[in-house]
């Protein structure tokens, strides 16, 4: 049945609605949330296996033929991202049970959580550009509430900035859709692609391509548009931060990938070169931030920016191999960023501060935490048997093959600095003398630790099982580098 494609959207949606009715009963909320989250994972995995065996799945809502109604499209890339999203959501949910606090739980934390998952999954599976805007808004609206929930001073202050930036970028998104509609007269993404290719190379299409890059660049934090991210991601509590860091910017990255492989492939010399330059500067900026701070949150936050740059560098190269590398790296990065945010969340809870100078010697009392962090850090750096390796190899190799020695060199060099920045946390936080907090009672962190441990195991398996996963990922990259496959699946020509 093709309606399988709607399940990763409908399950979080109905879970959220049911949860609204049980706002004050926390145990019931937790059970419903767990069940909903597990069902989402099952639906997502069965969708992904269906897509892998039977090709791209499409569904025309209400049986309107393809360009006229809204079409949901699940190709391999979006199915994989939906699986990853559901997994991260489940793990963050487990972590939330013990860390988010009764007050927040009573005030609709879980319903909003599921609306966020609905928005992210929807943005990954939609085949209509305006519907994508709507799912963006669902996601952003939920993220505003998650960011401000609790009402601490820092949260209020940063929510205002985050809200303003996203209101502007949403307005730009609608403007971009309006311009595109006036040229091609359609909103279905496959149909837009067909019409744009009939139109051929024209100046106005390039302008719209750059406008879309600006819009999604604000969501995804690329170089001149990343300024809002370090402050905003600093404010919320750890599980929310993990959700944001793992999912929100990646939706922007996915949208750039989708539009720049499906729509705007006429004037590659301009648009993709621009994307390439911006992604390289993004890497440099992220690296500078990551090594500059001695605050654990800031270090991981700037590592998000580095990863966005690396993924988009692969997209800008636009060969099948580079796209495979980008997808590899995208999924790896979602998993490992969530794990790292949850781990530093535990560290901050133990030490009572996010400053590295207040930590130290954690390994004596929390060896499990320390070694999980160590493995996660090596994974982020891209040490060979672990998951960050394969994606970067493919990206760097195709960068060299395309003759872009500078870009590929910077990607390689960035790994070193990323590894340095996360090892700085390990060396200063876990080794050395124990600080003030050591006089306090040993905190019970077993439950909190399970969540990042699950993710780290996933990341390690993802790295070890590269051989098994490679065909799946290359199917996804095949669809991206050959838009005809996507168009045929949607328009049934």
């Amino acid at each position, binding site marked *: 049945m093709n309606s399988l494609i709607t399940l990763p959207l409908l399950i979080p949606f109905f879970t959220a609605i049911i949860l609204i009715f049980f706002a004050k009963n926390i145990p019931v909320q937790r059970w419903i949330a767990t069940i909903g989250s597990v069902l989402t994972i099952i639906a997502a995995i069965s969708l992904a296996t269906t897509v892998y065996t039977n090709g791209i799945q499409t569904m025309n809502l209400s049986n309107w033929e393809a360009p006229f109604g809204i079409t949901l499209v699940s190709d391999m890339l979006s199915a994989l991202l939906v699986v990853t999203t559901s997994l991260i959501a489940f793990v963050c949910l487990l972590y939330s049970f013990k860390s988010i606090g009764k007050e927040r739980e009573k005030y609709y934390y879980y319903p909003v959580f599921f609306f966020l998952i609905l928005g992210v999954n929807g943005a990954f599976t939609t085949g209509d550009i305006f519907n994508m805007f709507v799912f963006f*808004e669902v996601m952003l609206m939920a993220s505003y509430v998650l960011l401000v929930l609790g009402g601490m001073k820092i949260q209020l202050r940063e929510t*205002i900035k985050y809200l*303003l930036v996203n*209101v502007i970028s949403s307005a730009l998104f609608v403007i971009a859709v*309006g311009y595109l509609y006036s040229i091609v007269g359609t909103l279905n993404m496959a149909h837009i692609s067909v019409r744009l290719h009939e139109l051929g190379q024209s100046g106005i299409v390039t302008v719209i391509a750059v406008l879309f890059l600006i819009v999604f660049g604000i969501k995804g934090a690329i170089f001149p548009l990343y300024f809002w991210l370090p402050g905003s991601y600093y*404010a919320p509590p750890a599980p929310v931060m993990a959700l944001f860091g793992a999912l929100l910017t990646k939706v922007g990255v996915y949208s750039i990938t989708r539009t720049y492989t499906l729509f705007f492939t006429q004037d590659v010399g301009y648009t993709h070169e621009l994307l390439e330059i911006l992604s390289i500067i993004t890497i440099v900026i992220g690296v500078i931030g990551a090594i500059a701070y001695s605050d654990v949150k800031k270090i991981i936050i700037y590592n998000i920016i580095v990863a966005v740059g690396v993924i988009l560098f692969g997209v800008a190269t636009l060969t099948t191999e580079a796209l495979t590398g980008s997808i590899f790296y995208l999924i790896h990065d979602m998993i490992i960023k969530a794990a790292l945010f949850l781990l530093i969340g535990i560290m901050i809870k133990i030490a009572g501060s*996010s400053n590295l100078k207040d930590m130290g010697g954690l390994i004596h009392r929390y060896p499990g935490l320390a070694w999980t962090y160590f493995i996660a850090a090596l994974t982020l750096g891209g040490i060979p048997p672990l998951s960050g390796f394969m994606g970067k190899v493919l990206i760097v190799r195709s960068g060299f093959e395309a003759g872009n020695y500078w870009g590929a060199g910077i990607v390689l060099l960035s790994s070193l600095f990323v590894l340095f920045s996360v090892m700085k946390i390990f060396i200063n936080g876990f080794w050395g003398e124990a600080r003030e907090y050591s006089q306090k009672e040993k905190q019970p962190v077993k439950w909190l630790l399970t969540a990042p441990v699950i993710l780290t195991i996933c990341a390690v398996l993802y790295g070890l099982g590269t051989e098994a996963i490679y065909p799946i990922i290359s199917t996804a990259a095949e669809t991206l580098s050959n838009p005809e496959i996507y168009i045929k699946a949607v328009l049934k020509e």
Partner: protein
Amino acid sequence: MEILMSLLIGVIFMSATYLMLSKSLLRIIVGTGLLSHGVHLLLLTMGGLKRGAAPLLGQQAEAYTDPLPQALILTAIVISFGITALFLVVAYRSYQELGTDNMELMRGKEGNE
């Protein structure tokens, strides 16, 4: 007609940008309101302003105006309405908590206080 509308939308965007660059939070919110007006007018204009009946089949006209942009605008209006309402409430709360509406004063060292 489209040219006139484009000029008007340009002026609205200009005012919105100016307001959003100011110090007072309320001016910024007024700016976002103007911005969304501009965006909605732009969608309407981009759909074409040719003459035709309102898109109601009961009108029995030869030509109708394009119904799609109108649906898009309706969606965008309610979304921006919801967000503006949230923004105003957040602004009110932060005025109570932080005691200022001056954006210049809303900073902390390194994001933490």
